[in-house]
């Protein structure tokens, strides 16, 4: 098991290197450089040229790539944002917390919906309950997250006024206000989290339903039934446990998916997280922020699939890796 984890971990290294390379190429292809933003009327062209030389912007691309990577690995230095005039790590740090809180709440809601619905739908398949749940999963598959977000925002945010329509906390609130501050934060999270969770959960519901129906026909369940175990015991102790294990393994993918998907939901709800920051950094041509975020999104996906593989292996020891 340790060997598997280690091997799978090592696979991430080339993946991350190629990713960093792609990110660097995107940045190379973009017009302008880090000094285009710091246009100071007192600086002459010659002085800018000296600055460029000092910053190493005139170096060949492989030297710049190397400097960039070394900066990240040794000093955790992702450069400076020229829109915000501060280190990239500081800006991302500010926003990352919001996105992580949003993703966590989304995950909680997702599983809170998926597990009961999947179990009901699987255990009572082809009844009216199952039909209603299946109709819901069809709807979820057909609905883009953005449309779900807009509909929720339109009805519960604007028309009913139950939830705030933007930001991550009410204006004027500060952390030293204690509980009201945290409640306000939670209040701002609910609608965006719900709009993602209601949609993304349908995959898990369907998977769980399929697993349960499949497991019911297995021989070991027949054995359990033959031994006279009552139905609740058959389901709770034998079927659900086996059906829920693979769900745990999807956790890694879900996390990666949620962080990548934050771009859309944060834009719909004008929520100050890294997804919104990413869009802003592209429209504002803030390359250092953009590069760091693409790197972050990519790394999250790579680490997410690593986590999923490791959990999958813990759950199902038959899985092997080359």
């Amino acid at each position: 098991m340790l060997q598997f984890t280690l091997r799978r971990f090592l696979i991430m290294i080339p993946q991350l290197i190629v990713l960093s390379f792609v990110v660097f190429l995107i940045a190379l292809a973009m017009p302008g450089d880090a000094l285009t933003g710091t246009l100071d009327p007192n600086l002459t062209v010659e002085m800018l040229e000296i600055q460029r030389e000092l910053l190493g912007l005139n170096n060949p691309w492989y030297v710049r790539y190397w400097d960039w990577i070394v900066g990240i690995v040794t000093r955790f230095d992702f450069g400076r944002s020229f829109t915000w005039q501060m280190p990239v790590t500081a800006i991302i740090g500010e926003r990352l917390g919001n996105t992580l809180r949003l993703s966590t709440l989304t995950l909680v809601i997702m599983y809170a919906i998926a597990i009961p619905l999947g179990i009901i739908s699987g255990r009572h398949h082809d009844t009216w309950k199952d039909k209603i749940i299946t109709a819901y999963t069809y709807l979820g598959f057909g609905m883009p997250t953005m449309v779900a977000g807009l509909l929720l925002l339109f009805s519960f945010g604007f028309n009913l006024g139950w939830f705030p329509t933007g930001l991550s906390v009410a204006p004027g609130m500060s952390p030293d206000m204690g509980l009201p501050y945290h409640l306000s934060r939670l209040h701002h999270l609910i609608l965006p989290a719900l709009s993602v969770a209601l949609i993304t959960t349908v995959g898990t519901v369907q998977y769980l339903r399929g697993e349960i129906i499949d497991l019911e026909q297995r021989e070991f369940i027949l054995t359990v039934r033959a031994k006279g175990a009552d139905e609740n015991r058959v389901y709770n102790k034998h079927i659900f446990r086996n059906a829920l294990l693979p769900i745990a393994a999807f956790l890694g993918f879900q996390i990666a998916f949620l962080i990548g998907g934050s771009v859309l939901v944060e834009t719909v709800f004008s929520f100050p997280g890294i997804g919104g920051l990413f869009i802003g950094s592209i429209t504002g041509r803030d390359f250092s922020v953009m590069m760091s975020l693409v790197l972050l999104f990519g790394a999250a996906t790579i680490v997410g699939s690593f986590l999923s593989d490791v959990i999958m292996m813990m759950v199902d020891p038959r899985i092997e890796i080359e």
Partner: protein
Amino acid sequence: MAKKTTEKKKMSTLEILKREFSQDIGALIALGVIVIAALFVIIVPLFIDQEYMLAVNPRRLNQPPSATHWLGTEIGGRDVFALLAIGARSSLSIALAVTLISGFVGISLGVTAGYFGGKFDNMIMRIVDFISTLPALVMIIAFLSLVSGFNVVSFTLIMSFFSWAGIMRLVRARAIQEKELEYIQASKTLGTPHLKTIFKELFPNISSVMIVNMTLATASNVGLETGLSFLGFGFPFDEPSLGSLISAASNAVVLQHRWWIWLPAALFVLILMLSINTLGRTLNRATDARLRRG
């Protein structure tokens, strides 16, 4: 003789489809909706007075629906119904183009990799594995930001570039399964050229998987286009598409008080995606004998 049997087989496929659809009201409705939507985007734009309806007109800004403007007008005074019809045409064309391009690339590479195996397969799978580890939406946006201005061709190509890996994996997996079966082995033993074996033997047997997958991909590509346009990286607002109409809702006033601008497009996307998905599932059921009804 050979021709006769294929004809017979085609008939039975049609019969299976007929039976599947006639036993499932949902599938029939979905099929109807898709036909109506297709006719809508093909026919309606032909009858719209584009010069008048799509002209920026300061005398009719943000009007609610009325007899002359069925879905009202937007912030520039353009008719929303006309925008919806023409926008849906653009969105569907893009979605279909992306499906066809990524389908073509994915199927060609998948069949080649699966059928021949070896070094080519190894190399291509490395690339596919890597593309799959990238967050697609973020990468598409990053690449789109490299292109200055909006351009339908680059938009389609960039979307396609991040969409072929799924179908490629699927087709490769199926090709690997099939090539071990007797009929392919027999064809090879008889000395049939590889290309002929692939097109005459392998293709007919994996075509159903490809059709189902591409149907579902079309739905998700409609979603992708609307998402990208909503974020401001697809169609700009003055070039109508379903996404650019929905993106009007990123303005809180429009979202709250001028629902007729964005809601019809949002519902159009929703209903269309639902129907395409339902169609895809019905086709899937029809191709898999174990799942068939009746």
